[in-house]
């Protein structure tokens, strides 16, 4: 049911499709742990076209493809490619489409992945577009909850940080609408609060949520805390960034106030919003979350390319 599909926004997916993906990811994880090499995508080529910086997304897609026996081509940085000569996105995508079986794109502009999908014949996977969507991150986030807690639905979830400009936070919040939480706390300084269209969507779907400014007041009530970085690069005004920078920091002592088995996620990279002293605690799931990027993306590539 995912064969040939573009992966543009998490909201394009049904819960049953994500369940299928997670089952496949379990198999991939098992194969990875067993050290078994797979040849599922032997002969397939993936193109990665990252017009914005990336560490995990790009490398985990490339690793996923290699682990499945496929190969990849990577669009060189701007100064070394034809884009420096002024080539537009449509032409770049057309070229990649003629070389590869699937294209993974990240772009500064919102809607770039959807546009690329219209231009390309082959499936396009969105690796992040502006402040909008990061569907594969949301898939990994949900998968991590499933591994950590055995379920995704009915949890008490807090999403902390830059809910205005962060595409990972936005995608995670929208992904949760498929697995309604018992309660969703949207925790942010007022300048970084969730955008209206996302809140309207939560209202439409009857999701119970509360907008709060301080983590301390709700931490005891959480099963899951999703921490995000302030998206400095997306602020229209650098002065606005200076006003909110450092406005929240998650430390071990704050988390220890919670008597519950709290799972802390972070899409990474982190700057200073998540203290290093959390890393060694039982709450820290974010490195495992990052490692699940490979099996989940393996599963997705397999389903998109072969069904």
């Amino acid at each position, binding site marked *: 049911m995912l064969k040939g599909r573009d992966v543009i926004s998490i909201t394009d997916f049904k819960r049953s499709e994500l369940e299928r993906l997670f089952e496949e990811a379990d198999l991939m994880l098992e194969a990875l742990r067993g050290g078994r090499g797979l040849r599922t995508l032997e002969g397939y080529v993936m193109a990665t076209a990252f017009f914005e910086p990336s560490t995990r997304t790009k490398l985990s897609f490339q690793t996923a493809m290699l682990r499945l026996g496929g190969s990849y081509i990577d669009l060189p940085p701007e100064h070394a490619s034809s884009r420096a000569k*002024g080539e*537009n996105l*449509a032409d770049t995508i057309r070229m990649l489409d003629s070389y590869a079986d699937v294209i993974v794109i990240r772009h500064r*502009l*919102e*809607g770039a992945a959807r*546009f690329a999908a219209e231009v390309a014949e082959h499936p396009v996977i969105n690796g992040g577009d*502006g402040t*909008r969507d990061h569907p594969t991150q949301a898939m990994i986030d949900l998968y991590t909850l499933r591994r950590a807690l055995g379920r995704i639905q009915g949890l008490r979830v807090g999403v902390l940080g830059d809910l205005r400009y962060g595409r990972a936070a936005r995608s995670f919040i929208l992904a949760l609408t498929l697995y309604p939480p018992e309660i969703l706390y949207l925790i942010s300084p007022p300048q970084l609060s969730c955008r209206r*269209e996302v809140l309207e969507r939560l209202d439409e779907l009857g999701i119970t949520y509360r907008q709060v400014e301080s983590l301390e007041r709700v931490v005891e009530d959480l099963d899951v805390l999703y921490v995000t970085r302030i998206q400095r690069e997306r602020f229209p005004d650098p002065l606005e960034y200076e006003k909110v920078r450092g406005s929240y920091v998650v430390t071990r002592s704050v988390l220890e106030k919670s008597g519950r088995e709290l799972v802390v996620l972070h899409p990474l990279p982190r700057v200073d919003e998540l203290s290093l002293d959390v890393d060694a605690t039982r709450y820290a799931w974010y490195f495992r979350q990052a490692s699940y990027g490979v099996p989940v993306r393996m599963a997705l590539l397999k389903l998109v390319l072969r069904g």
Partner: protein
Amino acid sequence: MTSRELRVSKIKDGTVIDHIDAGRALHVLRILGLTGSEGLVIAVVMNVPSRKLGRKDIVKVEGLELREEQVNKIALIAPSATINIIRDYEVVEKVKVRVPPIVEGLLRCANPNCISNQPREPITPRFYVRSLRPLKMVCEYCGTELNQDDVIRQLTSA
């Protein structure tokens, strides 16, 4: 028919745009590109009682038939409008405007970071209609919403 409407005489050949949302007749004239200096006979009736809308505006233009693009634009600011084509004092055709579920090309996205605003890409802005009253149109590329005021501003500026 209201008594106020009757004060405006019939036109021989041309177009009557009826059931325009009250207060928007001048926007309709802007969309039609009419300033009055063209020499066409134009009647504008505003804020008269209407059974359907409470109050409404009417625009009559002698010697003008609308192009499809103009009809589509009028639909976006006056979704209940009817367009009557008049020949020799008779209504020969009466069309209710219709807002299509997807509007392509007539509007620009308000988000400067939307791919549809990139001049060098072969891309046509595309919106879907989330709600008609109040009007809410959503960019298919970036999800940015345009409301009625945004749409009026865009359609009536130069």
